[in-house]
């Protein structure tokens, strides 16, 4: 019934939208990059969050309303990543199309492989835990394909006249990401099972894909800054497990990781979880190219 309604809405909407360029807004730059792979120049794709900012803490600035009020499609990471800021924007957007359940709302996580889903009861003593699973799922190229498939399905409903175009672009993306993934897998193949520490639990899908082993986090619990006792325990653990690298997202302070690194003899490596983290990382492929070559250089 729900799907039928979406299709009906979308049909009416599609008739209205025929011939015009789709206006797509994504919450993160990664979703924007993957979406562009599918839509090419037949849509304008804009991201709300920048690649170098923490996507959990985006300010719901009124200027984002300028983007949302005219959007035909809003693509979100989901899994409550945007819960602190997107609902407030949506309520003020005056755009019913892009509300959850509307034809212009796509939760990219709905077809993706989601890890760290809590199996028992959750509460806030566990920190900023995501009750619906880890939202950093885009860092697995297989999930990028899954996101692209969802995007292709939705934009083809919104613009049926472009369906063949979108489909061929999706196929091309699949081929290219498959080739790239072979390359990335080969680059990291010698380091399978290598133990690493990360600041936040941003990399479960990435490490699962490439066979790395996260043995600890700088944050004692998600979103909770480290205490001295946690840092001591982590330093000891890193010495014991011979951990060589601490991965840090660009929006976290390097001071603490550097102090741990010094005491444990490890290296601090800033890895970008998102496209646009630095100006040269302009798309999803470059994100992995850069991260993996930095990681290989650090592990070597």
């Amino acid at each position, binding site marked *: 019934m729900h799907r039928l309604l979406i299709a009906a809405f979308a049909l009416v909407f599609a008739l209205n939208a025929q011939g015009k360029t789709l206006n797509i807004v994504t919450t993160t730059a990664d979703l924007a990059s993957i979406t562009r792979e599918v839509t090419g120049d037949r849509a304008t794709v804009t991201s709300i969050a920048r690649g170098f900012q923490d996507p959990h803490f985006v300010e719901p600035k009124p*200027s984002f*309303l300028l983007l949302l009020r005219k959007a035909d499609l809003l693509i979100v990471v989901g899994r409550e990543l945007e819960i602190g800021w997107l609902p407030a924007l949506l309520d003020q957007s005056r755009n019913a199309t892009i*509300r959850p359940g509307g034809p212009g709302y796509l939760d990219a996580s*709905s077809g993706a492989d989601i890890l760290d889903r809590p199996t028992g009861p959750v509460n806030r003593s566990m920190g900023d835990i995501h009750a619906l699973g880890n939202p950093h799922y885009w860092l697995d190229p297989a999930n990028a394909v899954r996101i692209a498939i969802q995007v292709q399905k939705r934009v083809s409903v919104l613009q049926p006249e472009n369906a063949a175009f979108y489909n061929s672009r999706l196929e091309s993306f699949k081929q290219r990401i498959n080739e790239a993934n072979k390359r990335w897998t080969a680059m990291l193949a010698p380091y399978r099972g290598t133990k690493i520490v990360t600041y936040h639990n941003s990399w479960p899908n990435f490490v699962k894909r490439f066979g790395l082993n996260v043995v600890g986090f700088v944050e004692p619990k998600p979103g909770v800054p480290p205490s001295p006792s946690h840092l001591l325990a982590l330093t000891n653990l890193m010495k014991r497990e011979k951990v060589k690298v601490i991965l840090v997202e660009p929006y976290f302070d390097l001071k603490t990781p550097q102090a741990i690194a010094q005491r444990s003899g490890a290296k601090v490596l800033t890895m970008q979880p998102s496209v646009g983290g630095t100006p040269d990382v302009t798309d999803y492929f470059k994100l992995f190219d850069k991260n993996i070559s930095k990681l290989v250089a650090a592990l070597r």
Partner: protein
Amino acid sequence: MHSFQRDPADHRVSLTLFAVMFFFVVSPLYADQAGSQSNVSQQEQIRKLEKQLDELEATAVNIRRTLEALKEPNEPGMQPAPETIAEDLTRVEALEPSPTPTPGLAAAAPSPTPDQPTDAIDIVDNSAVPSVSKVFNPDISVIGNFIGKAGEANPFEERSPAALDEVEVALEAFVDPYAKAKFFLSITQEGAEVEEGFINFITLPWELNARVGKMKATFGKVNTLHPHSLPWVDVPLVVSEYLGDEGLIDAGVSVSRLIPIGGNFLLEGTAEIFAGDVEGVFERQQPNDLFYLGHLKLFRDITDNSNIELGGSLARGTAAEAGGARELSGADITYRWKPLERSIYRSFISRTEVFVHGGDAFEEEAGGFYSSADYQFARRWLAGLRLDHVQHLDDPSVSDRGASLTLTFRPSEFSSLRTGFRRTSYAGDVDVNELLFQVLFSIGAHGAHTF
């Protein structure tokens, strides 16, 4: 003879044995009979087994395929570990969406097509997960606001040394596809009251957004915020003295619209009509003595890291005890800075609000303002400064002044500990130095705040 007499205990044993044997012999017969009676369930079993067989076949094919793939690069000298073979991503399919992302929308049972044989219809498990019944419950949160005070007695603002100043209970949910409802219940030492309760129509045409109910009037900035969102323990003097102890809250209608003016400016206009009863501010004399309000907000990003917001407000209602109209006008300016890459560690916000009070019931106009600056200097620490100045309504030549410093520690998004030193000079002759402490703590799901 005696030896042929059976012990009654033996008799019981044999009877029991007989009963057990009877049960074992007869029950399968019954089962068989029951089976033959129910052709449908047998067919169903067959179908299930067939299905299992199909699945097994598919698994076998998959295993064979993986095996082939593993064998392929098995040339001498080129034998990578099996797990280093990259998955073929061209074959990746989107996974079946799990039911969690859209609560409230349970997957519909597949309806049979007309030509589908009835014995092929699967039994649908419609038993709901226990928590599913709760998906329509509103988001509920409770925020405790504990305030402590030390220092000199303040005759104009009495506070006990320690008090749970307010408990706010917030409930929020969609009413239907067109509207959301929000309720804020405020429980204080005076009792419980509905601070706000309104329906918000969020899917109106012409880019309108409307609220109907009891709500905070869109007058300036501080008046629209709940106490737990303020960067201070108290409210500025100009707010408490001009807008009443509780602030401008009344029952009525609010309609707002985004006005496109281009140039990356965002202009929002708001018009509101209220019943005209705000304690200490407006009081109806005639049935039509309503309270009207207009508000304009202009926002623009200066850079990615900074933005500016300007606001103008006008409110007019009846001040019954003064026998005429009371007019309030306000202007506010807010500058915000937050470096995106360091957004969780550093931010700065400066705000000034100026209010002017007048109307035909008052001989002279009076005015006041506050100016504040708050700087976040670490992930969990903020320091702030505020200056207050307000002219007395009955005699604008007399004014109250205040200066306060605050230091806030936020262990998480859900709690904060704050201390503030406040020096207030009332009418130039009563000086009060106070030290205020505040602990804010929230539980439950609290809706995201607007900017």
